[in-house]
């Protein structure tokens, strides 16, 4: 399995359905435009038998770290770098639920983020855990920002240590 950049000529975006309207709508009509404008990048996992069908996707971009909502130690450590990668969206088509595809996509996204951080340094990846999926990310070591249960972060150093980098 491997992810590729969303290609509106190749991928049948309209067939994707993860049961979350906002995530469906983003892929159907906005992801490609955002990529053309260099605002986000969306990567899709194709069905190997029919590559036009999208099994799942995630969207990456950059965001700003709210330092005051991090533990004091991290505030001190990263006081001069407020940039972070952002996993803005991650979704799996409902036909493929309960196959650990979400976990696979998360690891794939973290690998891309780790590679990017080797080229342009930034200290963490942040995720917007919409619709109460914060627990999913906490299982993998993400921590919530202070007073923001659905916005979580994971230091790049932690990804590197766990991925044997």
């Amino acid at each position, binding site marked *: 399995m491997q992810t590729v950049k969303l290609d509106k000529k190749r991928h049948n975006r309209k067939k994707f359905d993860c049961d979350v309207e906002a995530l469906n709508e983003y892929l159907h009509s906005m992801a490609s435009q955002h990529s053309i404008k260099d605002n986000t990048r969306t990567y899709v996992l194709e069905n190997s038998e029919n590559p036009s069908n999208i*099994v799942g996707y995630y969207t990456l971009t950059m965001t700003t770290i709210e330092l005051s909502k991090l533990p004091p130690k991290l505030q001190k450590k990263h006081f001069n770098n407020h940039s972070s990668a952002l996993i803005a969206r991650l979704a799996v088509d409902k036909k493929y639920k309960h*196959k650990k595809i979400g*976990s696979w996509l998360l*690891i794939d996204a973290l690998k891309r983020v780790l590679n990017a951080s080797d080229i342009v340094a930034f200290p963490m990846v942040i995720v917007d855990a919409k619709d109460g999926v914060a627990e999913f990310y906490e299982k993998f070591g993400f921590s919530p920002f202070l007073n923001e249960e659905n916005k979580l972060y994971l230091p790049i150093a*932690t990804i590197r240590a766990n*991925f044997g980098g």
Partner: protein
Amino acid sequence: MQTIQLNVHSNHIDFLLSMLQNLKDGIVENIIVDKPITNTSVTNSTIRLSAKDSELFLEALDRPPKIHSKLKEAFEQYENGQIKL
């Protein structure tokens, strides 16, 4: 200026870090640590810190990144191709 004496255990490290910042900022003059600090490279039983040393000491206290079993396991499954459609 004042001198602060700390009995340091691992759960006091965050407090120690804030005290070290005070040391660095010149708010306190000396910190005396009278016990070994766990999970760090500091092994002396008594440490006297000056402002000059504080930055190096802050780095020494920087614990290594956490290993998360679930994250590591998911990465290994990914790498080994164990998850299939």
